[in-house]
C-alpha cells in the first residue's frame, strides 16, 4: 500500500442511498459438519455502494460470499433479490439474478483473446466476428474505466489485467452486484489504484460492489460501508462517515482473541548452513543471505515475487543462473543432484502438501518412505518392516490422526498431513529446513503445533521460512527478508522495530523514505 492516500474522487457517492437494497441476506447460517461457518447473518447490499467485508482468516467472509454467488447453498436463511425470496442452485442462477463473483483463481481460457473470454457463451448470433466482439469489449471497458486490449491473448496479460477481464465478464452479463474476493492480493500498487478507480466508476453507475478484504488501509480508502465478521457473525457495521480510525477497526476485527502468539526462546546460532550471494536469474535479482544453525530467517512477501524460484534453487529443483549458493559448505553443483546421504541434509516442506510432498493414494508408510527411504536401505533392499515401525512411532509423536498406517494420505486432513510431512522431514535430522507456507489452511491448534515443532528444530537446524502471513514471520523468525519482484527489499533482525513497522510497505515495493 502506498503511503499517499488514495483520494476518493467519486461524484455520485450517495446518489443511490434512497433506493431499496438490491440484495438482502436474512438470517443466513451455514454449517459444515460441526463447523458453523456463518451464524445468523443479515446484510443489505445497496446499489451504488461499495461494501467491504472485513475479517480475519476463517471469519466466514468467503463462505458467505460463496453462498451469495450461488456456489454453496445456505443451511438456513433467505436471500432476497429485489425484494423477492430467491434460491440459487448454481452460480449460473446467481449470475442470471445479476450477482457475479470474481474468484481468486481466474476462470479464463488462456489461449483465447480477451474479447473471446468476455463474450464466451454470450455471443449474439451463430457467426461471430472478432472485430465486432472487440469493439463491444472496448466500449464496455471505456464505460467503466477498465483499460484493456480486447485482442490480446489472456496468457500474455498481467494479473491485474486478467482481473479486469473477469470484471468485464460480469459487467457484460449486466451483473448488478459484483463480489470481489481479496482482489488486491495479486496486484501491484498501481494496479490497485486502477482497480479502485474502476470500482468507483462502477458504483457511480449504480452497481453494488462487495469486496472481501483484511487490509484495513484499503478498506478505509475505498469502501462506503464496512461490515466486520468475526467467528462467523457480523459484529459491526459502519458507514464510511462514521468509521473510527484503523486501530478501533483492527480491534473489532480481532476481538478479545489474542493474536496467535508463541514464546520463542532464543537459541545460540551455530555454523553457517546456507550461504547465498548475489543469486540472480529466473526473475531473482542479487539475492544474498546467510542462514545459521539455530536461526530462523523468514522470507516475507506476497506470493509470486520470486519466492518459488528461490525455494527451487535452494532445494535443488532449479539450477542457479548466476551467483553463489552454498549448502552446508558445498557449492550447489556439488551438493546436487545427489545430496550426501549421511550427515548433511536439507529438508523441504513444500506448500503443496497434496500434490508435491505426498502421494495421495499411497499409505502412510509409503509416504513416510518417500524421502526417508535411504535410511531404511541396505544394499538394494528396503526394510519395510522397520520403516513401518518407525512410521508408527512418528505418527504417535507428531499426533497425526487417524493413526493407522494402512490408510492413504488422502484420508488425512490438511493439518494432519502437514504433521506427517514434518514428522517425516524431521526424522531425517536435517541441518536445513525449508518450510513454505507451512501453516496455510490449518486451523489454530494445528498452526500452533507446527510452529512449536519448527522452533524446536532450531536446536539442530537452520530454518528458512517462506511465508506470506506476516504474523507467522514475526512470531517465528529471527531475521526477516522482505521479497518483492525478485529482490530482497531489506533483511533485518526482528528487534528492529522501525523496519518491522514498514514491512507492509516493503512488501508492496516501497523502500523506506
Amino acid at each position, binding site marked *: 500500500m502506498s503511503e499517499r492516500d488514495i483520494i476518493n474522487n467519486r461524484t455520485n457517492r450517495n446518489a443511490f442511498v434512497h433506493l431499496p437494497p438490491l440484495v438482502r441476506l436474512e438470517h443466513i447460517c451455514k454449517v459444515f459438519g460441526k463447523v458453523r461457518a456463518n451464524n445468523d447473518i443479515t446484510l443489505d447490499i445497496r446499489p451504488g455502494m461499495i461494501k467491504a467485508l472485513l475479517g480475519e482468516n476463517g471469519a466466514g467472509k468467503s463462505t458467505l460470499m460463496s453462498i451469495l454467488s450461488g456456489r454453496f447453498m445456505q443451511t438456513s436463511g433467505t436471500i432476497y433479490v429485489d425484494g423477492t425470496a430467491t434460491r440459487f442452485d448454481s452460480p449460473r442462477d446467481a449470475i442470471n439474478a445479476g450477482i457475479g463473483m470474481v474468484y481468486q483463481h481466474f476462470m479464463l481460457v488462456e489461449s483465447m483473446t480477451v474479447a473471446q473470454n468476455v463474450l464466451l457463451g454470450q455471443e449474439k448470433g451463430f457467426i461471430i466476428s472478432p472485430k465486432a466482439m472487440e469493439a463491444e469489449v472496448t466500449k464496455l471497458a471505456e464505460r467503466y474505466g477498465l483499460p484493456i486490449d480486447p485482442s490480446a491473448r489472456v496468457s500474455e496479460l498481467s494479473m491485474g489485467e486478467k482481473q479486469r477481464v473477469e470484471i468485464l465478464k460480469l459487467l457484460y452479463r449486466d451483473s448488478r452486484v459484483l463480489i470481489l474476493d481479496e482482489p488486491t492480493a495479486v496486484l501491484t500498487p498501481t494496479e490497485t489504484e486502477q482497480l479502485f478507480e474502476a470500482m468507483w466508476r462502477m458504483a457511480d453507475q449504480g452497481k453494488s460492489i462487495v469486496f472481501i478484504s483484511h487490509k484495513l488501509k484499503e478498506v478505509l480508502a475505498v469502501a462506503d460501508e464496512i461490515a466486520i465478521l468475526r467467528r462467523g457473525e457480523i459484529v459491526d457495521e459502519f458507514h464510511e462517515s462514521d468509521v473510527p480510525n484503523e486501530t478501533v477497526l483492527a480491534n473489532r476485527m480481532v476481538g478479545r482473541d489474542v493474536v496467535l502468539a508463541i514464546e520463542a526462546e532464543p537459541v545460540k546460532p551455530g555454523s553457517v548452513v546456507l550461504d547465498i550471494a548475489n543469486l540472480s536469474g529466473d526473475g531473482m535479482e542479487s539475492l544474498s543471505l546467510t542462514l545459521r544453525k539455530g536461526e530462523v530467517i523468514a522470507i516475507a512477501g506476497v506470493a509470486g515475487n520470486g519466492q518459488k524460484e528461490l525455494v527451487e534453487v535452494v532445494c535443488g529443483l532449479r539450477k542457479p543462473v548466476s551467483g553463489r549458493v552454498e549448502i552446508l559448505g558445498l557449492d550447489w553443483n556439488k551438493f546436487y543432484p545427489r545430496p550426501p546421504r549421511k550427515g548433511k541434509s536439507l529438508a523441504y516442506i513444500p506448500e503443496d502438501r497434496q500434490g508435491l510432498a505426498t502421494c495421495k493414494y499411497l499409505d502412510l508408510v509409503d509416504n513416510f518412505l518417500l524421502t526417508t527411504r535411504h535410511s531404511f536401505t541396505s544394499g538394494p533392499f528396503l526394510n519395510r518392516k522397520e520403516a513401518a515401525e518407525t512410521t508408527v512411532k512418528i505418527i504417535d509423536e507428531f499426533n497425526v490422526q487417524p493413526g493407522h498406517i494402512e490408510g492413504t494420505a488422502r484420508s488425512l486432513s490438511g493439518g494432519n498431513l502437514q504433521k506427517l510431512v514434518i514428522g517425516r522431514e524431521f526424522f531425517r535430522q536435517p541441518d536445513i529446513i525449508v518450510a513454505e507456507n507451512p501453516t496455510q489452511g490449518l486451523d489454530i491448534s494445528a498452526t500452533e503445533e507446527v510452529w512449536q515443532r519448527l522452533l524446536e528444530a532450531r536446536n539442530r537446524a537452520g530454518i528458512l521460512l517462506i511465508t506470506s502471513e506476516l504474523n507467522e514471520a514475526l512470531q517465528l523468525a529471527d531475521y526477516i527478508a522482505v521479497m518483492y519482484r525478485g529482490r530482497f527489499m531489506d533483511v533485518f533482525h526482528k528487534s528492529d522495530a522501525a523496519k518491522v513497522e514498514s514491512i507492509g510497505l516493503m512488501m*508492496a515495493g516501497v523502500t523506506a523514505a
Partner: protein
Amino acid sequence: MLGFRIAKRQEPLQWGSFFIFFAALALSLGISCLLLAIQGKPFMRALLLLWEGAFAHGYSLEDTALKSIPIFLCSLGVAVCFRMQVWNIGAEGQYALGAVGATWAVLTFPDAPAWALMPLMFAAAAALGAAWAAIPAFLRLKFELNEIISTLMFNYIGMLLLEYYVYGDWKDPASFGFPMTVMFPDTAIIGSMFGRIHWGAAVCAVVAVMLSVFLKRTRLGFELMAGGENPRAARYARMPYNFLVMLVMVLCGALAGWAGLIETSATLNRLQPNVMVGYGYTAIVVAWLARLRITSIAVFSILLAGLRVGVENLQLELQVPAAFAGIMQGLLLITVLAGQFFNWYEIKRVSGMEGEVDTPGNSGNAGNAGNASNTGNTGDARNAVNGGQE
C-alpha cells in the same frame, strides 16, 4: 435438482477388480453373442464351445496354460510400464524383436550345444527386445515424444523387420517359397517340463518371483511404485525418474522379447510371420485389469489365454472368424474401464439443502491417470498483510 449425486470415494475400493471383471465378462459375452447371432451362428452353442475349448478338458487346460505363458510375460512388462504412467503399447513389436533375436542366435550358431545356445538365445532376445523399447523411451525422455505413438509405430516396423528377414535372408530354401526359417535344431527348442507344458512356464515362475521381490523389497522397486503414482512428488523426493522410465521400458522389452523367443522356439520351432498373434495387445488388457499385482496378472493371463483358445475352438467348430477374439478383448477392456468407475465413485442420495462438503482431501481434482499431466492446484494468492496493522 436430481435426487442423487455422484461423489468421489475417500479411498478407492480394493476388492472391486474381480467383481468388475466378471460383470464385464458377462456383459462382453452378451454383446458378443448378439454379434454371433447377426452372423447366424448359434450363440448358446458358441458359449459352450468357448468354455470347452478353454477349460473343459485336460487338453484344453494345457492349451490355455501354454498360451498364458507369453501373455503373462508380456503383461508383467506392460503392467510395470503402466505403473509409471509410461504408456508402452509396443509389447507386440518388442515380442517380434525377441523372436528375431533368438532366431539370429540359432541361425548364426546352429551347431552350438544346448547349454551355450539356449542362454545365448535368451540373451539375444532380451537384448533386442530391450533395445526396441529403449529407443522410444529415449525419444520420450530427450524429445518428449509421445510414447504411445512411437511404440505403436515401432510395432509396425518391428513386424515388418521380422517379415523382412523371414522372406529374405533367413528363408528356408526348402520351404517352397513359404516364409519360414529352417526348423530349429533340438538344441534350440525349449523342451517340455511335463506333458505339453514346456520350460517357459518355469521361466514365468522365476520372473514372477524376481519381479515381486524387486517391487516389494528393493529401494528401486519402491521408487517405481511411488514415482509412478505421482511424478511430481518423485522429483521432489529426488527419485531417479528418468532412469526409472528407461528401466521399465527396457524391462518390458526384455520380457516381451522372451515371450517372442519362447513362442518361436517352443511352439513353432521356427520363425514364421504367424508367430505374431497379438499377445502384445492382449497384454495391455491384462495389465489394465490386473494393475501391478502379480497374482492378478497371472490369473487374468490365464483367463485371457483361455478366451483365445476358446475362440480357436469356435473357429474350428463354427467357422467363427478369428477377429472374434479381438472383439471380445476390446469389449472386455471397455466394460472393465466403465466398471472401474464404481471403484472410485459412489452414488449418494441427496436432499435439497446440501452444499459443498468440506471433508479431508476434498480439495482439488484428483484427475485419473490421464495422458495430460494434472496440474495440481497449489496455494491461492496468499493474503498479503496490511501494512501497519495495529
